């Protein structure tokens, strides 16, 4: 039930915002599914995976980390490559999506 309400709210949010605020958890989910979920999972990583969980992480922390990976002030070959493909809006959306997920 909660999920339905949440989805409803997200959709409502999306229709209200449209292009005014391009970043949204809904867009973030699509981006996360395409870019992050292979390792970090769409909700949480596999019980077996050596990757950190992103669900419920602080939004600002996620945004900062992704931007540091993107400009390579924080070094990690895989994350530098992946973050390099994200726009500011992508980063905001993805951070917004994962921060709102319950761990």
């Amino acid at each position, binding site marked *: 039930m909660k999920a339905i309400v949440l989805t409803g709210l997200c959709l409502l949010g999306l229709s209200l915002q449209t292009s005014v605020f391009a970043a949204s958890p809904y867009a973030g989910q699509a981006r996360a*599914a395409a870019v992050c979920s*292979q390792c970090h999972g*769409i*909700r949480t990583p*596999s019980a077996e995976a050596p990757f*950190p969980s992103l669900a419920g992480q602080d939004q600002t922390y996620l945004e900062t980390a992704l931007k540091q990976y993107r400009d390579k002030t924080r070094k990690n070959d895989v994350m530098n490559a992946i973050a390099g493909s994200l726009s500011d809006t992508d980063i905001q959306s993805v951070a917004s999506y994962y921060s709102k997920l319950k761990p």
Partner: protein
Amino acid sequence: MHAIIKKISKTLLTTSIGLLLSNGSFAEAEINAHQLFENNCASCHGSDHGGYLAPALNADTLKGRSPTALRTIIMAGSFDTLMPPFYNRLSDDEIRGLVKHLQTTPKLPNPAWTIEDMKKSLKVYVKDESTLPAKPTYTIDNMDNVIGVAARGKYGRGEGSKAVFINSTTHQKIGEILTGTAAHIIDYNPANPRWAYVKTDTAEIFKVDLYSMQAVRSIKTGYNGPGMGVSRNGKYIMAGSFVPHNAVILDADTLEPLKTFELEGIDPDGKMVSSDSGMIIGTPFDDIFAIALENAGQVWVVDLKEGFPVTKIEKVGRHLHDAFLSHGGQKLMIASYDDSIVAAIDLKERKIIKKLEAGCVPHVGGGSAVKVNGRTLGFGTNFGDCDKTVVSVWDLDKMEVVKQIPVSGGTESPAAHANAPYVAVDIISKDRRARTIQLIDKNSLEVVKTLDVGGHAYFPEYSADGKFLYVSAGYSGDEVVVYDSHSLAKVASVTMESPAGIFSHGRVRYMTRGLSPDEIEGAK
């Protein structure tokens, strides 16, 4: 976080042990690489390097491929497939070693897994089954309401790999059985509602007590292969493997192997071949099993009596795979990949009735059949990604094609229920379409609705009462999504790692999804 650190240090430990062991000697390093392959790759790619759910990885198939590109795939995984990322799970040296090993190892000869090996692999978790509770330890009105989901786990093994059982009236999990490697098939005992059997991709079979939700026994029947069926009297299980090419009949009570069968025969083109096991099915029609020999194109009917004699039906099709039953279980509809037909077999006469046109690479999954206006209609999915993608509808009384319904992509498994208005099919074409399920109206035989489930949505299944439609959002979805079967509103989500096949306990009553239980009654 702790768990993660523990995992990483465990990986480091394994790596350093690996390095110690491999120290210098080339032979040992090779053995090590083979062990890495067995422990990480073989459950999907086949223990003989010949492919299984995933492509064959051997010197021949990987000839000329760039080692760097292969390393990248292993590290990052392959998007839109089950291939997970092994970055940080395997060390860079291990990945390099694996690539070298794969590019230099030919497809192995059929490895032996004998009846003695099977006997030795039998494990007993509950010695005295009389200590088990007499009824379910959870609240449930009817055991038919149990739905089992084969959760593969991201890596096809480990803590994420399990059979998850759900009460399909409340959509709450009622139990989980860890299976070590990816669960693939769940069957139920038709004679006693408490027993379920779970088969993994590495060919272990678990006997599960649904009342106390625990595994009581297990046996390893081969290296790879999902084929499994339970006899109508609940006394026997038959299991078949891709690797090696054999099948076995087990005592369903003790899981002890009774007889093995070497799968080989003359294919429709006159060549003697050794063969993978395709589907195995028990039928309410008779005390028999039917098993498909994929490469030999034969269906064998095994009588459940002294010596388990076999009747061979030859020239059924090229590359047989899965099947479903109709007409009280007397008729078997079996898919043949390479000649785009579904063959109808009469299990009483033990011969082919007719070969019906299907579509591009027919894969009927569990199949579906529904009664509409006095006709019994069978639905067949086709998982090829061709120009024309259709779901075939056959009149199973007259054995003729009624319609080929255009759908948006390749399909793998149809679901139907006597009380639900739609036949659901999963679109598996590898792009955004993979997120969707299409619904075919039983009367108009047209697609009337497309559901966006998310992830890689597949294996739809109705609850036993037909009120709910369950769908696996699969890999990159990590949830099972539940819909109201009439309004198609989403009513629940059950999270798990990489869910795949969904199996309603109700199947033991309605035989093939979509038929009413009267079909079976009619057979007796």
